[in-house]
């Protein structure tokens, strides 16, 4: 079991060290210019290939998960969000799923009673939802805040976001709330996988690797901002060089930054090949993005081909004499 998290953990350490030492050995142009471009390319191409592949696959059945009363007789109240029969209901359901993770909110856990009866009971387990929501929103804020390195002058909406994120005004450089919430939530999600026996049993290396990678990215980023410090103007010169296609490697940037950038590049390149593709996949879940209207509308399997069918009328024409002889009821006597 341990190799499932020790190998990803060692991999993240190794990747960091590769960039840290590599940049020190004069390979800054590779870790700072070549690899980030390749990673963005791999991310985009991989993402498009994955989603177009999904778009091309057939979805022959109406299989929405129904979590409430479906549309029925007029005096029975329908649950319009959890069992939608119209596109607007589906859109509302999808928006709530994407922005508030409603299906995680319903998460339950099964456990045996501790008393003599030893019965299995199901209880509401909200902490996966809390952790996931905190993690995703903190990550979103962190990504958006990083636009300050890719725009000059920085748009006021990004500055506003920074002001909100740093609203507690603790310490200097000012503490960002997302910088606390992101690692805390990622550590919680990791602790779940490590210490909950049932979740540990279903956790693979591919579940641990992204968590360690994101924790490594957060740790290097937090270290650069609050503790070890870097030449921020030099770094922005470099990131602006990347996005304006005139890459430069300024002096004195330091191995820690290259380690951070390399881990981010690895995350981008790894993204389309991993479970992280739920970013695109959440929109394409057939159990969520379909209306439950099978009682009102006939859905024909799109790849149906013509098969020779033998209707009852033909059957009766064929066997009428024998049926009458055997005393079976027939629709037409002659």
């Amino acid at each position, binding site marked *: 079991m341990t190799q499932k998290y020790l190998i990803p953990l060692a991999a993240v350490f190794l990747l960091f060290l590769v960039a840290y030492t590599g940049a020190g050995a004069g390979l800054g142009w590779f870790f700072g210019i070549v690899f980030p471009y390749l990673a963005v390319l791999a*991310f985009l191409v991989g993402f498009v290939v994955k*989603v177009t592949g999904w*778009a091309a696959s057939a979805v022959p059945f109406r299989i929405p998960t129904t979590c409430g009363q479906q549309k029925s007789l007029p005096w029975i109240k329908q649950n319009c969000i959890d069992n939608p029969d119209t596109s607007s209901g589906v859109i509302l359901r999808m928006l709530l799923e994407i922005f508030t993770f409603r299906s995680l909110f319903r998460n339950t856990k099964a456990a045996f009673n501790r008393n003599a009866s030893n019965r299995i009971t199901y209880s509401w387990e909200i902490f996966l939802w809390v952790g996931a929501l905190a993690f995703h929103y903190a990550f979103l804020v962190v990504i958006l805040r990083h636009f*300050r390195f890719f725009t*000059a002058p920085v748009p006021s909406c990004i500055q506003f976001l920074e002001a909100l994120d740093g609203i507690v005004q603790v*310490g*200097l450089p000012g503490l960002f709330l997302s910088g606390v919430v992101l690692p805390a939530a990622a550590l919680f999600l990791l602790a779940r996988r490590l210490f909950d026996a049932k979740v540990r049993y279903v956790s693979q290396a591919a579940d641990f690797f992204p968590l360690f990678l994101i924790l490594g990215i957060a740790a290097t980023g937090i270290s650069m901002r609050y503790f070890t410090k870097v*030449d921020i103007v030099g770094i922005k010169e470099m990131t602006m060089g990347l996005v*304006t296609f005139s890459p430069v490697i300024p002096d004195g940037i330091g191995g820690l930054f290259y380690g951070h950038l390399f881990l981010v590049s690895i995350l981008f390149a790894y993204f389309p090949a991993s479970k992280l593709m739920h970013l695109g996949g959440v929109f394409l879940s057939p159990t969520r*993005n379909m209306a439950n209207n099978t009682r009102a509308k006939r859905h024909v399997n799109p790849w149906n081909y013509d098969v020779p069918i033998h209707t009852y009328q033909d059957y009766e024409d064929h066997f009428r004499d024998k049926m009458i002889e055997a005393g079976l009821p027939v629709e037409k006597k002659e």
Partner: protein
Amino acid sequence: MTKNMIMGGLAVFVLAVLSPFWFNMVTTTQAAPEPELLGPAKQAKKCVLETYDMRANHMSLLDEWRDAVVRDADRIYVAANGNFFNMSLSTGENSCLGCHADKAKFCDSCHTYTSVDPYCWDCHTNPKEIE
């Protein structure tokens, strides 16, 4: 989900991912500020800390200075190089802005470039603005 909807969403996503690239094509991009010593700082070959430390830690230093002055009335800072400095951001010849004459060049150019909004100026004023 129809195929058109999926492709439309995918196109929006690709554009969003590429936004740092096209945003800098459609807007004019500001160049990185060049550090420049102006006023008395040009002649004085001494500062509070070494350049590297100053770049990395000036905000923490100012924070410590503020606490020392406000809480302990301790106004003199003895630098590692043996020089004495007045622990003041903007008052007098021996303060930060007394020596580095131009706030716009000395403070704002880098802060604006990297989108840092220090709250020094919630209380302090730029001496040049008063005159």
